[in-house]
């Protein structure tokens, strides 16, 4: 029997506090496919909000922290239920002048994977033994799609979910931004919601039970508007669907 792959969970502050089902689901799925999952409680935030708003010194301090925490994890890989936070780790190198820290940042980025990418590309797994009855549509979160080139992987995973019917939004629907953009969503809320409404209109027209994505931030944005508009469509994280066995 192969020794279990040791995976350290990069939970992300958003999933940890506001969408724990995503993180819990991720842990369960990883274990189901044979990983030994650890969680280092010292982690908090990757610094993306600071970096995206222009607060580089603050982001840099948090980057240093996270690099040190994960270097000491002794794991084979770091896995995260968020494309945008994983992509942030790829930006870490830019935050440092010092060659030593740049190398450490690069090292961390190389070892960190978004969940669907990890399952499909690293482990070669597409069927995680999930069951979820319903019509689903997928939303490609921007950073996962464009920074990490994640497109196919979630779809392959969802197609193996028993009872699930995957419906694509008419192109380019799945790939269009949901309008969250971090602080953009509250700095320019009207624009954010105008962008969001086109997305939600498309989801409404698709006649699905749920919209699924790999980023809790997008799900908060889309889910928040769906419910405000009185829609019965649920917003679910990929990990929730994959962890489902009913």
């Amino acid at each position, binding site marked *: 029997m192969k020794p279990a792959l040791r995976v350290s969970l990069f939970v992300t502050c958003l999933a940890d506090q506001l969408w724990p089902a995503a993180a819990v689901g991720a842990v369960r799925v990883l274990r189901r496919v044979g990983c030994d999952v650890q969680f280092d*409680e010292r982690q908090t935030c990757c610094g993306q909000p600071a970096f995206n708003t222009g607060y580089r010194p603050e982001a840099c301090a948090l980057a240093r922290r996270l690099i040190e925490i994960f270097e000491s994890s002794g794991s084979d890989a770091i896995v995260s239920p968020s494309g945008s936070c994983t992509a942030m780790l790829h930006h870490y190198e830019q935050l440092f002048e010092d060659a030593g820290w740049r190398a450490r940042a690069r090292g961390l980025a190389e070892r960190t994977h978004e969940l669907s990418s990890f399952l499909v590309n690293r482990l070669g797994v597409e069927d995680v033994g999930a069951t979820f009855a319903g019509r689903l549509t997928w939303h490609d979160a*921007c950073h996962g799609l464009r920074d990490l080139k994640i497109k196919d992987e979630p779809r392959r995973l969802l197609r193996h979910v028993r009872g699930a019917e995957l419906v694509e939004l008419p192109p380019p629907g799945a790939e269009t931004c949901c309008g969250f953009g971090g602080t953009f969503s*509250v700095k320019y809320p009207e624009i954010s919601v105008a962008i969001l409404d086109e997305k939600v209109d498309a989801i409404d027209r698709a006649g699905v039970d749920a919209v699924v994505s790999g980023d809790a931030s997008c799900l908060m944005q889309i889910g928040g508007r769906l419910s405000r508009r009185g829609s019965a469509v649920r917003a679910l994280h990929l990990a929730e669907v994959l962890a489902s066995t009913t």
Partner: protein
Amino acid sequence: MSFDREARAALADGQLRGALRHATTLFGERRRAAIADVPDWEDARDRARAIKDETLLHLDQFLEQFAANAERAGARVHWARDAAQACDIIAGIAEQRGARSVVKSKSMASEEIRLNAALAARGIAAVETDLGEYIIQLAGEEPSHIVVPAIHKTKGQIAALFAEKLGMEPSDDVTKLAAAARRALRRRFAEADLGVSGVNFAVAETGTILILENEGNARLTTSLPRTHVALMGIEKVIPRFADLEVFLRLLPRSGTGQALTAYQSLLTGTKRQPADEGPEELHIVLLDNGRSRMLASPVTRQTLACIRCGACLNACPVYRQIGGHAYGSVYPGPIGAVLTPQLLGMGESSALPYASSLCGACRDVCPVKIDIPAVLLHLRAQAVARRGSTGTRTLLERLAFASYAAVMARPRLFEWVMRCARRLHLMPPLGAWTKWRDLRPLAPRSFREEWRRGLCDEGAE
């Protein structure tokens, strides 16, 4: 002029939003169809970017080479440090030649320097001949898109405008409207003493300028009048004549979804013999106006790779909703959001780098692979590093991020703060969120609480 206010006004304009949605969708489809025909599209993008990088690394040398070759072929080359100097040079040329009737073909740079106003102040009337530019000139407005300046106007609005300004019978027929503009402008072409054009590419190796268009107005502007003034940003220069091929492959497809525009004019100096057709004089004005400042860093330098195709506007979810006027600059959309603050200074346009969700769709469609999100992030970092602005909003934001940094550095404090929020049902005042979106109720336990309560050992061997 406040971006916030203008954006809100745009969002309230249902007709504008419909026009934008239609146009950006159509352009997107046409672009996709056009590039499907080019099997080595990605390779072409890489080559074009490499040429731009090579050029920008030695911009001064290539500009000198271009100027020398253009002058050898009979052109006069002028160097303009800024908008005021460029306007002065061009107005001076017009005055010296007693030019009373000036025709202009499309030039973003001429809008950037507000040339028409400067000429008018010196008693010289310049008429725009590109149909879209002509329409907005009659309407007294600014362009709202780099390629289709009047995209925000319906044919009904244009019909009313033409009825008022040209005495035309109001008609919704687009062909009739175009014909009316053609008639009105044809006389101006015939009479013009001086033509002002833009430049799409300037070839250092030969001193050639290349102008792309569909209507024929640029050809008329640059071949009929006695004097031709070509205004170009210094970043338009490329090293070799053969380099034109890859840009001609990329630009029309990216901008309008055409394999090629109807006309390309490649102009090198002046006529070789008196009996030849064309202007007696060619003046080329090289405009800096803040561009050379961008050369300093690799991140900002790529802004100058832009070939003004407009593809990023068509791909941008923000532009799609608010259109070009909200940006308050002749350069709107993603490229505008990074170019305008760098040309005008962050003080004038500090909102622009933040008016983006950083989705990256612009980077995907840019023919020269400008990483616009990276430039936006760079400008945001600059905005924060500036000590100048101490408005209340910025102070609050600085405090918020200082608290955030302090809390996130301390996991126990982080947990405690979140636990309090959960107990007290307290969230930071986020009216900006809750006005339009529900806030997901906080789950009874965070992930790390679940972990400690048993998830940690669940399924463990």
